């Protein structure tokens, strides 16, 4: 029997990459757990509260979106709506074109990866430079990010030092401080040359129109401070109702994403440079990206839109730890990606319908999710959808015959007795591919079908005999 694609990818992963992914994920996960339980008496209550707030937002997006637009416009920003990836890229490009801008510095945003913005702009003669260290390395190496928060989780420092040497950033030196220093030197003057800065937004607050951008490198701040035009690319689900909700969400985000009490740089952006302010971008654009999200909203998987992209579910996931992010063939890997990536494809869902299968349904992802998304339930719903759409799935035996046997007690008991033949068959002759696949890795215990029922009958008989015996 053929193994699933993600399993094949995991088997092909180099031991070095596997070690980098496993150790990195485990370290962040364990520190996250320690921090949350050291700092809060009942972190689960916070997760549930944050989950309820985001659920409320997702279920009321139709009223929040116009409200946010009105606030942003009142604050002096210009708002653009993009229903597709193409439209979002075009919106950014036309903002740049109108200013004659050809150099863009980018902070890390997952939605720009999702819509393929950098490539789109590069093809049209705009330099779109990643300024987040991890994303910078990915861009330099023509690679793909393998994690939502740690894009180079799959690389070790030796590979990065070699990459820098190949690209003229200095002789081989794999000391992390030196790697950072070199990227910093290269990037510093790029900020000053840039015509515009692009960021994402971790949150957009409905009551104030405040954009919040969280980084640990200060690069988003440079993108804002050194350029005259700020473009924020934002998924439509990024809204929070009130400024005060940020207290909860920033605390949960920093701990869940990077195991920090607070991220190092938290930008609160209330609009372009106001008269009297010494500096800041004179123009601010917010591009809201749908790209399949309203379709997701219409499904029973809408809870996935609560996601705040912290990556905690990746770090804890045993499948992600074994397979790495690239195995998911998507911008969003891991448990959240296994739900979101196929959903965002809309009608092309079958292309990634195998992703929801890549889970033992262990539930660790739900247990760590800062917005309490029931990820295993959503994976199950998508498995049901894949089955309903007739997408073939290696490793899942057809269940029709099984359900027939399991609804007829006589047939079930006959199967229990008949299974004994397994005890006498060599593995290669076992007529069920799933059992052969089991035996490839594990011993199958002896078949003892019906033994318990016989034991129980004997016990009952003996008990009855005991009772009827004269005292």
């Amino acid at each position: 029997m053929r193994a699933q694609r993600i399993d094949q990818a995991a088997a092909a992963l180099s031991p070095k990459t596997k070690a980098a992914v496993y150790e990195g994920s485990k370290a962040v996960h364990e520190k996250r757990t320690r921090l949350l339980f050291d700092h809060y008496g009942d972190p689960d209550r916070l997760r549930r509260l944050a989950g309820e707030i985001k659920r409320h937002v997702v279920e009321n997006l139709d009223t929040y979106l116009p409200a946010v637009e009105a606030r942003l416009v009142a604050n002096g920003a210009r708002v653009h709506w993009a229903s597709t990836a193409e439209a979002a890229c075009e919106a950014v490009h036309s903002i740049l074109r109108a200013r004659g801008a050809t150099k863009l510095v980018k902070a890390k945003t997952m939605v720009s990866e999702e819509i393929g913005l950098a490539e789109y702009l590069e093809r049209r003669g705009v330099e779109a430079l990643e300024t987040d260290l991890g994303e910078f390395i990915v861009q330099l190496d023509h690679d793909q990010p393998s994690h939502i928060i740690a894009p180079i989780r799959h690389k070790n420092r030796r590979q990065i030092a070699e990459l820098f040497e190949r690209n003229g950033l200095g002789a081989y030196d794999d000391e992390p401080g030196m790697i950072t220093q070199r990227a910093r030197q290269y990037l510093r003057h790029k900020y000053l040359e840039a015509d515009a800065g692009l960021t994402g937004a971790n949150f957009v607050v409905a009551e104030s129109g405040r954009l919040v951008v969280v980084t640990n490198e200060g690069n988003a701040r440079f993108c804002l401070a050194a350029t005259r035009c700020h473009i924020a690319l934002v998924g439509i689900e990024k809204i929070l109702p009130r400024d005060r909700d940020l207290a909860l969400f920033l605390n949960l985000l920093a701990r869940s994403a990077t195991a920090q009490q607070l991220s190092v740089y938290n930008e609160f952006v209330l609009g372009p440079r106001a008269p009297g302010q010494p500096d800041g971008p004179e123009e601010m654009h917010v591009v809201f990206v749908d790209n399949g999200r309203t379709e997701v909203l219409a499904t029973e998987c809408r809870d996935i839109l609560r996601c705040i992209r912290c990556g905690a579910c990746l770090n804890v996931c045993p499948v992600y730890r074994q397979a790495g992010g690239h195995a998911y063939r998507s911008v969003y890997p891991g448990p959240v990606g296994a739900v979101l990536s196929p959903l965002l494809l809309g009608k092309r869902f079958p292309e990634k319908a195998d992703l929801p299968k890549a889970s033992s349904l262990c539930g660790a992802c739900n247990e760590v999710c800062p917005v309490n998304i029931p990820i295993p339930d959503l994976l199950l719903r998508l498995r049901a959808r894949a089955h309903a759409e007739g997408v073939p799935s290696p490793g899942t035996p057809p269940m029709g015959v099984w359900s027939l046997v399991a609804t007829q007690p006589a047939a079930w008991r006959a199967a229990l007795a008949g299974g004994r033949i397994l005890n006498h068959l060599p593995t290669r002759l076992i007529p069920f591919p799933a059992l052969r696949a089991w035996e490839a890795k594990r011993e199958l215990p002896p078949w003892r079908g019906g033994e318990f029922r016989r034991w129980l009958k004997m016990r009952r008989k003996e008990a009855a005999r005991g009772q009827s015996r004269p005292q």
Partner: protein
Amino acid sequence: MLNPGRTPIAGKRVQLMATCLCDAFHDDVAAATVEVLEHLGCEVEFPEGQTCCGQPAFNGGDWAASRRVVRHTVRTFSGGDPVVVPSGSCAAMLFHGAALEFEREPDLDEIESLGRRTWELGDFIVNGLGVGSWPGRFDSAVALHRSCHTRGTASSEAVALLLGSIAGVRLVEFGEGEQCCGFGGTFSVGFPHISAAMGDLKLDHVRAAKPDVLVSGDTSCLMHLSGLAAREGIPIRAMHFAQVLRDALKGRT
């Protein structure tokens, strides 16, 4: 909590759901469950028509097939007595999974009603019957694998409480206890490489703690782990906690 609003325990009558794995492979686990329940004074009924909880098709995405089996299970376990299952996984299927696949079905009420009176064995003993300690003796260092389907339920703590109370039992902790063993039903055959790698990690952690026996509330995890260990030529001793409770009563280790 995954299983809220459960029907309180009234009498001493229970219905035993043995699980398909015990029916086919692990008869001694089901037998131990009967002896443990009878020791507690329960009158154990075993509905003969029982087959499977429906989980394989539910996890596989064939919800129509799964619902047929769940409906059969609901018919088989009629009445109002608690249904006790020596498996966190099958119990969770009945009080959580089934409700998900029946959310648009007219008989959702009946499904949920069975879910409310379904108990994982350890949870039933401790939180259903209010028994917090176990008599007898079992001289062993025990590593307790907390199976994933008991996440968010009271089961693992209940089992740890019972095991820890047995004279002679020493519970040993092992690394990354929150991680899955890699079984995952059909996951184990669709993703054989990842499944086995997860199992090997679990076995490494368990072996490092040097227990005499690996114990769990789910035979599926144990079947996967001991099957891997046996195939690698370094067998481990694995027991369901019901077997430990039963053996403690009989004073055999």
